């Protein structure tokens, strides 16, 4: 069942008393304009994230988490729009934005994020596939902004760009944070945390094992022994030369076929 304006207002009242139990959508500066028949309008925040060109060809989720985080940070640009300025979303471009509002969903509701028809007709999409807001979520909602029109769109922070409707459900047994909580408590546009999924963890562990086996198998033990003998000889060659020799042998490891 979708909540109507009276139910939404009542839930918001409860949220004022205790933000851990009721519905919270703050700031609620203009309820008469913001609360529709079965949804609440949300405004655009000032934080955006865009992907910038880098030397990376792709992002391999099997890499160690820290490496992925570093790579993501390097190809993502964070943009903060000052008051009265606009973020320009060009045709066919994609950016992460966020709502100005902090939204907390009660345990017995789930939310559905949608665009507003006026902006939709200009070609603005506010999410590409992740419009579902889980029960118990708390934080600013991330918008997956896309311009599918043919003209650039100026996006001003503070303007109503999206709407959320609330659906009743059976109360969940665990809070959002306890269940997964990857995006909880965010205050701006949050980047993907998909690489933290358990499936990727398993892939990562397996990948690391394969790499380790490749390294052991391909390690030039003979060359290493040869180098040690040379170093212990009466007339050892320069260390740099030995080092280069060893590296040339190790260099082949990356090309070795998987075991």
């Amino acid at each position, binding site marked *: 069942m979708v909540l109507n304006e009276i139910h939404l207002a009542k839930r918001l*009242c409860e949220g004022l008393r205790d933000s851990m139990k009721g519905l919270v959508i*703050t700031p609620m*500066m203009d309820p*008469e304009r913001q609360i529709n028949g079965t949804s609440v309008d949300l405004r655009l925040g000032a934080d955006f994230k865009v992907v910038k060109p880098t030397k990376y060809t792709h992002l391999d989720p099997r890499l160690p988490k820290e490496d992925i985080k570093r790579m993501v940070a*390097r190809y993502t640009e964070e943009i*903060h729009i*000052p008051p009265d300025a606009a973020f320009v979303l060009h045709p066919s471009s994609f950016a992460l934005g966020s709502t*100005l509002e*902090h939204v907390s969903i009660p345990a017995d509701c789930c939310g559905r994020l949608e665009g507003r028809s006026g902006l939709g007709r200009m070609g603005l999409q506010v999410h590409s596939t992740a419009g579902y807001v889980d029960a118990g979520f708390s934080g600013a909602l991330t918008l997956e902004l896309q311009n599918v029109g043919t003209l650039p769109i100026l996006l001003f922070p*503070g303007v109503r760009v999206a709407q959320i409707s609330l659906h009743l459900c059976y109360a969940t047994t665990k809070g959002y944070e306890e269940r997964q909580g990857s995006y909880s408590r965010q205050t701006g546009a949050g980047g993907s945390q998909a690489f933290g999924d358990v499936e990727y963890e398993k892939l990562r562990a397996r990948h690391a094992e394969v790499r380790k086996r490749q390294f052991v198998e391909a390690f030039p033990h003979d060359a290493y022994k040869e180098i040690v003998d040379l170093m212990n000889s009466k007339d050892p060659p320069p260390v740099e030369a030995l080092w280069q020799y060893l590296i040339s042998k190790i260099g082949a490891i990356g090309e070795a076929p998987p075991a």
Partner: protein
Amino acid sequence: MTEHRTLALDLLAGEIAEKVCRIDTVLDAAERDAPSSEHQVVSAIRDMVDVLKHELFYALSAWREGRKPSRPEEPKTALGRQMLFADGLMRVVNHFHPVHLQLGLLSTSWIGSETQIFLRGLFRTSPAAIERISVVASREYAFAEAGLPGETLGRGGPEDNSGNQTVVVLLPRIELRNPLNWAMGAHEAAHAIMHMRGVRESLERIWSRTRGLQRESFFAWTQELLADYLACTCLLDAYPVSLALYAFTSRQRIDSVSVSHPELLRRIRDLMNLFLPVWGPPKLSPVFLEPPGFGSASLFFPAGESDIGDLSVLLNDLVDLTLHLPQTRAQGVNRTEYPFQTHELLEALKGIVVESQRDLRTEHPKAEYDSATRKALLKRLNQHVPIGSFPSSPEQPAVLKCQSAELKDHLEEGKPLTGDCTDLKKDLFNSIRELPTTMTQIINTGWHYRLTVSHERFSQAFLNEGYSLDDPKKGFLKRLDDYRAHIEERDKLLLKSIEIAHYVDVLRELPDGA
């Protein structure tokens, strides 16, 4: 007394740990945004920070011992013991400054618009010229103001075509994303306000009867104290607390006097002793004016209402402790007397203050931040909800409205609403309408959160139990990383609150149909 002193030193330890964490945050941002040619610089600074972290580890380990109660037979040595163990903390402070200086080698510094919003929000009813505030990162760990005519550019400050002056406030690089310490930036902005109100000229007239160096220094010192007073008027508790903690970590010796600045130590005390009781608001309880250890009144809130116990006693202890810390101990404290003792001078200065305040807030700032509001905002912040807005009406009537028979039937049994329910709806909607919080409310709630929740977190992580340096699961470095995540979350919440407050303020002022 001893408990307060321990708390004061705990706070100092927490402040230093925060600064070390913030350097890491700046370096991470530089690694992400700076050109790759600067990555070697980042790496070199990281090495320095590693040394700083080691020092912090040993200092905190020592202080953990020092804060244990001394044996009952040696009550008089408690302070000496504490100072001995706190010695390491001051060593970290001394080494922190050269590291901060190196951050100046980095080309990027993300200065968000929230700083301008904050400073403009504090002095929102000032002349239009204050609308132009520019924030610049300073290399030194120091706050300063520039751009005032005759001080930086000789004849005039930076101006635009319309003749408006730009106020330039310099903030330390690590404080650019820390709203709590922007309280010190408010002092610098207050200098600009005084200049625009013609205070300099008035002060020149007052000090015209003195001569030479004395005249120059009194002239400058009065401006500093007036800026303190204005900042305190706008920021309430947040300003003296921020100033006291800055006094600890400043490079300037807290007991040193220069032509341009009185001692930091005296500024805090004189702020309380001379200016506030004479010119309030905000008013100070006379008890506060007693020497430390004898007073038990809160600074601005009634006694017993402060979440951290007694704020005024704590502040007094913060000041008092500085006398014993190593950086001041060497030369003793030079207690310079200020020439504000005559009634005539006080009255003249009072006139100037009234003039400077003319375009500031008209209502009493305390009214904007009463005890109930503070508790409600603090509760929201504890639940990780931004505090940029606040319900315009008390919540109870709205809930009562929901209990009306017609609404109850609709809400509980799904019966359709009959007749014209416009008024019911209007009342219900009005009760959930929110108003923007002021910058004063945000920053004070932030400080209360810092002094309660963050401090508790710091104590639990670093002061309550022993730990090794680099145990990956519960070692010092891991704890420091966790504490840093907490600080970053707090900063983000406050920055978001400032942003929300601004947009609520701007959008609610738009006329219908605009």
